């Protein structure tokens, strides 16, 4: 399991453990959390819709690309779907390697590519009662 979509809470301890290996000198972890504000709006909770068949295939591909490109030891990622509350972990990426530069670069690569390429959509529910699909309001207005 290099890439997974989960409909239950992400366990960061288990994620970290899954990439450990005593040939590695460096671990870099990225976690994306649900924060209480976005673009000036107070956020109450958030909903991720994931198209799993393609997200899983593309997620695994991104991790393979990072492995080849940066020569890391291990990498994994879990992305949530469903309803999330403040402070929940939306996504975790863990990378290990012999030295730290590759681990930093690969972790950054994986999260950047995931955000651009995976068929995942985020609907923010604001304290005001309004809800909105993130990244869609401007395009919709232009359409």
């Amino acid at each position, binding site marked *: 399991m290099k890439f997974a979509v989960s409909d239950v809470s992400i366990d960061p301890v288990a994620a970290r453990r899954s990439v450990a290996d005593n040939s590695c000198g460096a671990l870099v972890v990225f976690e994306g959390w649900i924060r209480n504000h976005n673009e000036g709006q107070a956020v109450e909770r958030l909903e991720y819709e994931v198209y799993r068949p393609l997200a899983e295939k593309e997620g695994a591909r991104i991790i393979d690309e990072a492995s080849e490109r940066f020569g890391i030891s291990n990498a994994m990622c879990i992305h949530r779907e469903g309803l999330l509350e403040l402070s929940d972990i939306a996504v975790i990426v863990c990378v290990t390697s012999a030295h730290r530069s590759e681990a930093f670069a690969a972790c950054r690569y994986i999260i950047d590519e995931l955000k651009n390429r995976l*068929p995942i959509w985020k609907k923010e529910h604001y304290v005001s009662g309004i809800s909105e699909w993130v990244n869609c309001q401007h*395009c919709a207005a232009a359409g």
Partner: protein
Amino acid sequence: MKVKVRYFALFREQTGVASELVDWPGGTAAELFQEMTGKHATLMPEAAALVAVNDEMAGWETSLAEGDEILFFPPVAGG
């Protein structure tokens, strides 16, 4: 030519359907998107959207075939 079209997130809410069977003269993914934009009147410009055909990401110029499943994705926002 019959194809299946699926809508996600904002597109599903705009069209009011998760999927539909479409019978049309055939053409590219872009042409089908235009067709559906006309039908539902609410989809955003294709430049902002993404398309996948049979569970693989595809270009808008892809020619569609009988029985294809076409997925229209609004802008993604993972992470």
